[in-house]
């Protein structure tokens, strides 16, 4: 099975949101998206999907505060993870499932099943 992995560089924002590490895998009939969400509890995760996007917001149980962040060594606090992903193929949002264990969020997104009749010539 061909596995497509899309890994984008993690970033951070001044509004207190961190971009989580994530991975998108093409599993044939479904797309598997995982997120690494340290300091997060299951009840504080919000997932929203459309036919071609998935958006995850996850509030940390304790905000993380670094006194010396970045080259200028400024104090910065992060309270949540947030990530919006454009999916490589259309999916059926109603059939999506999610689980959370050991800080890893797994979202299984079944692809749209297109049935096409082929006429035998």
């Amino acid at each position, binding site marked *: 099975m061909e596995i497509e992995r899309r*890994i984008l560089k*993690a970033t951070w924002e001044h509004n207190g949101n961190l971009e989580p*590490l994530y991975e998108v895998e093409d599993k044939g009939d479904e797309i598997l998206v995982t997120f*690494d969400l340290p*300091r997060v509890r299951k009840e504080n995760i919000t997932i929203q999907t459309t036919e071609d996007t998935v958006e995850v917001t996850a509030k940390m149980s304790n905000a*993380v505060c670094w006194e010396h962040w970045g080259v200028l060594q400024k104090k910065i606090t992060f309270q949540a993870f947030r990530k919006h992903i454009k999916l490589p193929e259309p999916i059926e949002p109603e059939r999506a499932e999610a689980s959370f264990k050991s800080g*890893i969020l797994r979202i299984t997104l079944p692809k749209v099943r297109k049935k096409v009749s082929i006429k035998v010539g």
Partner: protein
Amino acid sequence: MEEEVRIVEVDGVEHKQPIVIEGLPDVGLVGTIASSYIVEKMGYKEIGYIESDLFVPVMVIHEGKLKTPFRLYSDDDGSVIVVLSEVAVPPKAVYPLTTALAEWFHKIGAKLVISIKGLPVKNRMDIEKPEVFAVGNTEDAIQVLKDKQMDFLEEGFIAGTYAMMLWECTKRKLNAISLLAQCFPVYPDPGAAASAIESVKKFSPKLTVDVGELLENAEEIKLKARDLMAQTALSASEMQKGLEQDMPIMYR
């Protein structure tokens, strides 16, 4: 011709047949997290750096001081050396870097080279305490692993810096082993690093590191390591790390 990779030591460093711990970035950042934790907890001093035109043009500032991201550390009596990096190894630098390091390890009379790495597993989230597997490059190295009752990788491809490190050490008749802790493929894994450190301690009684703090601070370490993990994952895909999931064609 000028060397593609240059290893530069500060003056006056003496080596006493050191054990070398190599923790360059790889899957799960297991080696990087483990080796930097060892350096911090053991209070090792910086003894040099590695520079190359093949590396990304990046320097690091720590406490206002300019440093190269590829650095060398040692204990006070020169019997343990740690090689670590704060940036990913570019694929084109793997051969010259491992060649230069193996050459230097040979020159300083290293007794054993230990690469700490991750072994990506799909079900990592179901594993409480990651297991550690080993590869040795010579009969002597394999015997050392047997003496320490390590589990072996028996069959398959290995890819990346540690694979070439084993080979370059073999060519110089240097004993080298790789310790691979089960880990998340593309997420930083302090738990795997803790398991790896426990294994490294079997080979160097001088390492009296307690991994409790590493496990306690695992979530914060994961947060800090996000960017290096993302860089490393991109670099790893170019190094054919995916081959490690494949089976070789040779029959036995």
